[in-house]
């Protein structure tokens, strides 16, 4: 598996997908014009990685998401959820600034309906 790195901007998060360790890291705001174009490579990378790896950790430091980014995130979580039900060791860690409790509430909304380990962790 080759690593996938997407540089961030004011409207898009920095994305890093590494095979060793098996990890997806996303940090920043996400309100791109076309969230599908941005996240499709990430979804494909995750599916390919999960085809060979037994573990995958997703570390998120996302603050603002627009509607299409919300939709894509749900797809990413569904992919992880399937892997989890398939017996793979997948974990989501969603980090948030302790001064902005609302991001934690939103992470809770995403977590709802999922059974995989999903940690919402304050920072700072």
């Amino acid at each position, binding site marked *: 598996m080759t690593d996938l790195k997407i540089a961030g901007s004011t409207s898009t998060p920095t994305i890093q997908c590494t095979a060793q360790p098996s990890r997806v890291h996303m940090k920043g705001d996400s309100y791109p014009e076309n969230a599908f174009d941005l996240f499709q490579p990430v979804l494909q990378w995750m599916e390919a990685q999960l085809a060979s790896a037994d573990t995958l950790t997703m570390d998120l430091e996302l603050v*603002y998401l*627009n*509607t299409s980014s*919300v939709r894509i995130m749900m797809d990413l979580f569904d992919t992880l959820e399937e892997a989890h039900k398939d017996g793979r060791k997948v974990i989501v860690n969603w980090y948030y600034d302790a001064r902005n409790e*609302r*991001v934690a*509430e*939103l992470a809770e*909304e995403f977590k709802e309906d999922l059974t995989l380990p999903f940690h919402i962790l304050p920072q700072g």
Partner: protein
Amino acid sequence: MNAASDSEARIEALLADPAYADHPLREPLAQLYRQFQEQIRHLDRITRISDRYQNAAQREASSLTERLNKHLKQVEKIARISDRYQSMLQDLNKRLEHESTHDTLTGLPNRRLGLSRLSALIAADQPLSIALVDVDHFKRVNDAFGHEAGDQALTAVARALRDPLGGTEMVARWGGEEFLLIWPQTDLASAIEHAQALRSAVPAQMPSIDGRILRTTVSFGLAQRRDGESVNQLLRRADAALYAAKDAGRDRVMVAK
């Protein structure tokens, strides 16, 4: 046993009876009976096939409903989360707006908001009076008690100036230890009265630092807007009156010429 199978049993018995073996009706009856039985089998088969089609259609419909419901649930979730993100942004905007128009230390409107309110009232040609207020010997408070005490003194003055104000009146933090008071629809005589009341209330509001009460007073430079007067002209006259109040010994209200 029903009538149909009664008659079937009777016909089968008659056809099997050797007594009628040579009866001319026997052969046509046997043929008719075989055809009848064939028809019954057809009917059964058609019914079975039709039932299976119906079941399959029903299963498909319920799986469609299930998928539709799942999608609806997903769309609702996306909308709910998205709405919350939007309201988070709106609150952030409100906070930024408030922060950009208010003074962090005292919580009062800042110079920008004070000036914009004053400009709006003057643009609408409203009669009004203003005062520039300065804390007397503020540097001495800072020097003697430290900057933290200075901040406490400013906060106390801000409270003393703000708390008695009515709905349309405003006090803004104009600069370091300077404040701008705006009284819309207020003539000079009433403004003087208000200013004197505020000035005399300030010392009682001052905090004590290390057991020593800050003996802080304030000076007022008061001006009523003249017909056609610009924001800057009005502020200059109030400022000149404030200087005059300082020159005359502080802790007083002076009216602009």
